[in-house]
């Protein structure tokens, strides 16, 4: 992880220096000091480059003074409405080849200085453990950014919880990026166990325990694979300290299909490799729990993830099978590739029975239909609770992890009526596919406040964004951390 340090404004002794200038503003503070040292050279250079401080503008000067190898001047746009995280994320790729870098945020608040560091760290993430022959010069050299702030200790304090969240994000990105031969349910569960060092209580249930609990829906999905299913329960008792519960916990539930071939209803070959990230819901819940524990959130939260591998096999589930879920409701499996909802059904039921949550949010890369509906800029949000939905939408806007509300309703629910069982696992045809999936899940929430995030379109990115490098996005970690921070702490 890119190390972020804070110190008092002073021209660095060595390395790259980044100056930040607002739209229409003249060099001030450290920038003015440097300009003087350069005998007005900075001002002249900016004029020559028609630099106006607009967002996205930048000017590079090599070795303008003896102590600075590279000077990067970055436009911030208008100061009102500055997104400091994105600013930091935008800076990182321009300095990643340096060995030392200082960002002068002396004109900004402590919180903004901290956010610049956070943005740079989020962008600097790389999943390169399987690149064995990459040349050293192709790897980023920068391992630390020093942010100069008027109030370095304030910035450092503001950055501490952000760092914990970033570590959660990276855990999620690691899990989602891991190939499916490495990350199967048992391995995933083992990695969750490591979170005990953050103070989380971690419990792992195997097939035997789940069979006892009647998890017919989840185990039906798993039965085609030689890799056994797991359910992992991660508890963070930040409020009660594990003693008598003062309040009902918040539950986050994730779909963790470590690889989804589709099962007997097998997927076409093109793009199937993407199905390694069909566990992104579980990955997000795991990273979120690490984030909450890492920043010692003052709330009781339970994260539950259902981990299976969906394979065709001699004992695989067939279309036409009827399974009995932990809730007792029976499900006719029409399409074995609509497996995520089967996993969630049992885990959600368990969450309710065991933890009596005040609210539940589930995350799942559930349907292709949600990508057709919304594209890649919004996750689909389904909820039976207006207040919870509004809070999630707001937390999404605040963190840049946007969601879009989608409808629920009886007319859609009717589409999953089965002739033989209580329900079937697909709605018949492609019509409203993400909605019928949400209706299915809703049948297991017993009317509790619940929200479902269909993240199939947002869990993975095919191109770089300011604070999200191409690949696993960890969509949801920052949003739900914010949700907890804003409404359920303390």
């Amino acid at each position, binding site marked *: 992880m890119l190390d972020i340090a804070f110190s008092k404004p002073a021209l660095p002794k060595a390395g790259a220096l980044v100056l930040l200038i607002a739209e229409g503003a003249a060099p001030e503070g450290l920038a003015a000091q440097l300009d003087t040292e350069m005998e007005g050279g900075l001002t002249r250079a900016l004029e020559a480059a028609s630099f106006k401080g607009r967002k996205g503008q930048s000017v590079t000067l090599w070795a303008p003074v003896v102590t600075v190898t590279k000077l990067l001047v970055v436009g911030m746009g208008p100061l009102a409405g500055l997104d400091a995280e994105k600013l930091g994320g935008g800076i990182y790729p321009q300095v990643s080849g340096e060995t030392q870098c200082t960002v002068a945020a002396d004109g900004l608040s402590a919180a903004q200085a901290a956010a610049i560091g956070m943005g740079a760290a989020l962008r600097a993430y790389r999943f390169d453990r399987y690149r064995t022959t990459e040349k050293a010069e192709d790897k980023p050299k920068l391992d630390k950014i020093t942010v100069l702030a008027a109030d370095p200790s304030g910035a450092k304090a503001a950055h501490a919880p952000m760092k914990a969240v970033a570590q959660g994000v990276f855990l999620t990105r690691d899990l989602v990026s891991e190939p499916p031969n490495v990350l199967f349910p048992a391995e995933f569960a083992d990695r969750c166990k490591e979170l005990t060092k953050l103070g989380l209580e971690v419990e792992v249930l195997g097939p035997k325990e789940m069979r006892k609990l009647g998890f017919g829906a989840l185990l039906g999905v798993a039965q085609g694979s030689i890799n056994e299913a797991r359910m992992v329960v991660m508890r963070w008792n930040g409020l009660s300290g594990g003693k008598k519960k003062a309040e009902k916990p918040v539950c986050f539930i994730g779909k963790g299909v470590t690889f989804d071939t589709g099962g007997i209803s097998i997927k076409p070959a*093109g*793009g199937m490799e993407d199905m390694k990230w069909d566990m992104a819901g579980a990955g997000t819940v795991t990273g979120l729990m690490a984030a909450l524990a890492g920043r010692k959130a003052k709330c009781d939260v339970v994260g539950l993830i259902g981990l299976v591998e969906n394979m065709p096999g001699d004992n695989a589930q067939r279309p036409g099978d009827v399974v009995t879920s932990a809730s007792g409701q029976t499900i006719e499996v029409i399409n074995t590739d609509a497996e995520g909802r089967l996993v969630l059904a049992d885990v959600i039921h368990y969450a309710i029975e065991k933890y009596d949550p005040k609210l539940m949010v589930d995350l799942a890369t559930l349907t*292709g*239909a949600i*990508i*057709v*509906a*919304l*594209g*890649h*800029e*919004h996750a689909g949000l389904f909820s039976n609770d207006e207040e919870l939905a509004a809070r999630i939408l707001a937390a999404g806007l605040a963190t840049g992890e946007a969601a*879009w509300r*989608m*409808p629920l*309703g009886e*007319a*859609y629910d009717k*589409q999953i009526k089965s002739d033989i069982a209580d329900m079937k696992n697909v*709605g018949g045809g*492609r*019509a*409203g*596919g*993400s*909605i*019928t999936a949400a209706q299915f899940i809703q049948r297991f929430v017993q009317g509790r406040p619940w929200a479902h995030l269909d993240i199939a*379109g947002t869990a993975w990115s095919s191109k770089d964004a300011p604070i999200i490098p191409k690949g696993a996005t960890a969509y949801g970690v920052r949003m739900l951390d914010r949700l907890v921070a804003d409404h359920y702490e303390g």
Partner: protein
Amino acid sequence: MIKLRRGLSKDAVLLRPIAEGAPHPSGFAGRQGQVLELSPGERWIGADHAATATEWEGVGAACIAAAGRAPRVALDARELPAHFAVGLGVGAVLRAWRFEILKARRAPGPRRLELLVDDPAALADAWARAEARLSGVLLARELVAEPANRLTPKEFARRLRGLESDGIEVEEFGRPALRRLGAGGILAVGGGSAVPPRIVVLRWKGGFRAPPVAFVGKGLCFDTGGISIKGAAGMEAMRADMAGAAACAGAMLALARRKSPCPAVAILAIAENMTSGSAYRPGDVLRMMSGRTVEVVDTDAEGRLVLADALHLAVTRFRPQAVLDLATLTGSVITALGHHRAGLFHNDAALGAAVAAAGEAVGERLWPLPIGGRHREELNSDIADLRQCVPDGTRFVSDASNAAAFLREFVGTLPWAHLDIAGMDTAETDDLLAAKGTPTGFGVRLLDALVERHFEDPHRV
């Protein structure tokens, strides 16, 4: 449509909504969906918890569905408040409608409808208003039901001329006029057909001078997909690909019949998308009426091309206070929302909210969908100002949003809402106001209600 009467005529079967009461020995308890054949001349229909006019429409439809072969029926609305009585009648008319002119023998079932009310005179005004709206819905349904060999672009335009008798001005832009206008979008789409395309403009002057409300409709009399031809299965449904234009025409008739004070205009882009030697091709670059160039990627994404020209014409010629376009535009909106809600896109939050509320009020429900920055970016073309859609073969394309982003380019800054009504033109199940498989007329009531609620106050505009 339905006669208001005080008493039951002798040969009519009485259909009586029962809202509550002690359970009948048969098990009938008045629940919605329940029907009791009390005697050959009387049926009870469950109406419990019907508490809105829309719900009473559902009961009216249930009455007709329960009437069986009875040719003459009377729905009992006595003791119902006026708006519920009207709802009952509206539901009955909508459900009883059938398209039978092409059948040698008509199927048995209710044809003569009566609504029993305590005081027919007192309800006459409210009913007249409802009937105006219904006439619009039924016009739209008839147009949608007509097969494509009968309802060609030429015939569609001819029928629209019939609206002149209701005081609507009708103007037609044929191929020469479209060429003069530089309408490269609709000319390309209609170029493959033996029957040339046209834009028909309907104008209702209303009662005050103000910029009109503009309805823009996609009127593809048949859509084979063109060179990017569709699969054979289900292609017959493409006769309904003019449902947007039909709904706009129906809404204009409703406004005229009830003498709405609001000035309104409908711009209907009418064409047939055929494969032929003169058909347009994927790769073609079109110069649209607005002057923009568009790269064709898929000739089956033709709706947005004809709408782009129609929208441009609407915006530049009429400077409307609001533009609403209706189109059976994308399969992707069906994947997104199914057959229970149409997709709503807009560039104006107030208009978007008003349109959604009007839809809720009449039971023609919408759901907002996003136009994200990326949806527009995906339309960047290497050769033209923009491309028409994202190439097929890319998995999971949010084409409904892409299409909306495309259309937005031709609207300018006027308040605009786009209703993607694919999947809503034809009833998918039997429990609605239209029998399964028949046209719904979706959009007519919504547009009429929107105008009634928001655009009839001359001091507001």
